[in-house]
């Protein structure tokens, strides 16, 4: 045998054996790995007022359907803040930071609504796990949604839907909803130092949930787990299941669902409005990348005209942001939100006639760009109405429906409104989102389905001496919350401004003008 081999072989064998030995020794000498997460019994004074499930297992997060993969609560200090992720993923952080997902748990309007609900019931705080499961999953999973706070807070818990809350998901049930997500947040994350992550980034991404997470979070099923909300006796006075939010099902049963145009395609496109227009033009190509902006419909949270009120409403600054940068990011996101809203709806005059001293006309309110109903989501608050004004040739108003009082923040009660109503056990409307006493959900006018329209007819008396041509002005307005909610829950003198989704002016002689 060759002398070089004879000389080197023992050293090669020694090196190989030494490395194997070192790894085995490290494995043996390593302290016995404890099951990640925290045992339920180790959370002092943790309340379980809803009892065990059908198999007798405790339900620490009920009435939210959120759970961890290994069934244990999370150790707050092991959950990375988005600010830590931002050290490397700055672009994604900058996209996410102004989004509604980032402030889902700290948005003051939401916080106040939860507080009011909590006060309605003896186990109100524990019942609020239902809300917090989607809005502040870190709080719920750490055991902080409890009347006795025995768990220390952490940055990640205050960040609403922070990075790890999506990037560790392993299962979602979009039909059950109510936060029906399973997160491998205890087991699916690494605790590597940054240099080590940079040395093995592929394995860092493997640690964050592997392929099942990446496939899941790219699907509409994942979004549906929270964007489907059903009330039952666990969290409300409903005796049968009440569908409060059905955004996932609206999408699933639509043209968009059938053509695989997913939630992420529109709401995570770098330019969502441009993408919606692309879809409207029939081009179903996917976006060039998915941004972490989650552009939605809540324009109020990006209304920089509110000044310091906006910072208050958004629950202050997120960890990792300065005030200047926060404002800059909010302005950018606000622009994208307003453009997306304007890409959603359209108005069309379908019919008009004057007969028997009456002007009759019909307006088609169209859902042109939303892959779900218009409006969708928490539509006891988010609502839409149509304003129509008929003027004579001199500009005098002959008929006005849907006027908005900008001083008192009230809408014409006779307006055509698309909204759902929460009703208590006596059938009385609850205007301020009091989930825990809601017994039934009714609709003033159900949302307009994707690519559908709602034909609204009007009849207005006309005096015999009216001078034409008559001008018909139409505006479709959207508002993220009712004024009652602002007064009753926020207890601040803030008129929630409406947003013009679409507008059109028609000369009943034929010359028309529409926008956007």
């Amino acid at each position, binding site marked *: 045998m060759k002398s070089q081999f004879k000389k080197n072989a023992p050293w090669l064998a020694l090196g*190989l054996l030494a*490395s194997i030995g070192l790894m085995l020794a*490290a494995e043996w000498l390593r302290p016995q790995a404890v099951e990640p997460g925290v045992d339920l019994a180790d959370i002092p004074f943790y309340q379980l007022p809803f009892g065990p499930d059908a198999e007798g297992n405790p339900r620490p997060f009920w009435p939210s359907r959120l759970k961890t993969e290994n069934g244990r609560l999370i150790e707050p200090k092991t959950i990375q803040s988005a600010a830590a992720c931002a*050290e490397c993923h700055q672009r994604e952080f900058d996209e996410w930071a102004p989004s509604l997902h980032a402030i889902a748990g700290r948005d003051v309007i939401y916080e106040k609504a939860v507080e009011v609900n909590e006060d309605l019931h003896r186990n109100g705080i524990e019942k609020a796990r239902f809300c917090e499961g989607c809005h502040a999953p870190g709080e719920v999973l750490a055991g902080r949604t409890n009347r006795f706070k025995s768990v220390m807070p952490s940055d990640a818990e205050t960040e609403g839907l922070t990075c790890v809350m999506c990037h560790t998901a392993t299962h979602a049930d979009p039909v059950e909803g109510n936060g029906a997500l399973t997160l491998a947040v205890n087991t699916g994350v*690494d605790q590597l130092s940054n240099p080590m992550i940079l*040395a093995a980034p592929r*394995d*860092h991404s*493997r640690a964050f949930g592997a392929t099942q997470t990446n496939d899941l979070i790219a699907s509409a099923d994942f979004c549906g787990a929270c964007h489907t909300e059903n009330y039952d006796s666990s969290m409300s006075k409903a005796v049968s299941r009440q569908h409060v939010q059905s955004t996932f099902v609206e999408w699933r049963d639509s043209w968009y669902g059938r053509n695989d145009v997913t939630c992420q395609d529109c709401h995570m496109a770098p330019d969502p409005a441009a993408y919606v227009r692309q879809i409207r033009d029939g081009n179903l190509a996917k976006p060039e990348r998915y941004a972490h902006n989650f552009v939605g419909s809540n324009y109020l949270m990006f209304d920089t005209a509110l000044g310091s009120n906006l910072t208050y409403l958004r629950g202050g600054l997120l960890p990792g942001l300065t005030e200047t940068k926060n404002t800059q990011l909010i302005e950018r996101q606000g622009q994208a939100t307003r453009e997306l809203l304007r890409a959603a709806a359209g108005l069309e005059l379908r019919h008009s006639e004057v007969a028997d001293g009456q002007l009759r006309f019909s307006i088609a309110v169209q859902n042109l760009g939303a892959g779900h109903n218009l409006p969708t989501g928490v539509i006891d608050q988010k609502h839409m109405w149509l304003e129509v004004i008929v003027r004579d040739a001199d500009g005098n108003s002959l008929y006005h429906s849907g006027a908005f009082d900008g001083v008192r923040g009230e809408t014409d009660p006779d307006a055509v409104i698309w909204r759902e109503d929460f009703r208590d056990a006596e059938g009385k409307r609850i205007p301020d989102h009091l989930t825990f006493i809601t017994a039934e959900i009714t609709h003033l006018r159900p949302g307009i389905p994707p690519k559908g329209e709602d034909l609204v007819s009007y009849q207005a008396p006309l005096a015999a001496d009216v001078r034409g041509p008559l001008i018909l002005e139409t505006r479709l307005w959207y508002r993220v919350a009712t004024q009652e909610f602002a007064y009753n829950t926020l207890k601040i003198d803030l008129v929630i401004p409406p947003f013009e989704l679409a507008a059109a002016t028609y000369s009943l002689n034929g010359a028309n003008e529409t926008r956007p």
Partner: protein
Amino acid sequence: MTAPLPLESTVRNAPAAPTKSRTSLLISLLFAGLMGSGLHLELLAGRNWNSGEIVLFVHLCLGLAFTVLLAFWIDRHVRSGLRSSQRPAFTWLSWLLLGKCVLLLLGGLLMTLPVALYLGGVIWFWSFETTDLLTFVHLWAACLASIGLLAHLLLRHWRHAHTTDKEAQA
């Protein structure tokens, strides 16, 4: 590439100088250690990255030491090897091994570049696709280099006397 064959040379090389020999043995030792820890990172660490961190750290340290040692040693080894190699196939296989080693080390060094920059205060990293490519190159270059090293150590670089005699007669 191949040096002119010295017809009278039918004897094996003279023993290597002790320092050179010790360096080559150390390089062999490090190579084997890197292969072992690398296989652990590729096959086992994914099960629990938190326990794989120490192996990754050791792999990085060994890799840097290997690179430095090889860089200082390889020049003399190639020069003396070219002089003494009597078989073109062996010479070509050796060049191939060197190419694989360069690919392996370059891939590894490029993968550690973000770490070096991070320690220098700059945050930068390869795109996901580039990381995948570098990992692929590093892994397969390591496998090929291992086979190449064994072949390099096992194959003869000298010719048998009778072969040389025949060639001389021809």
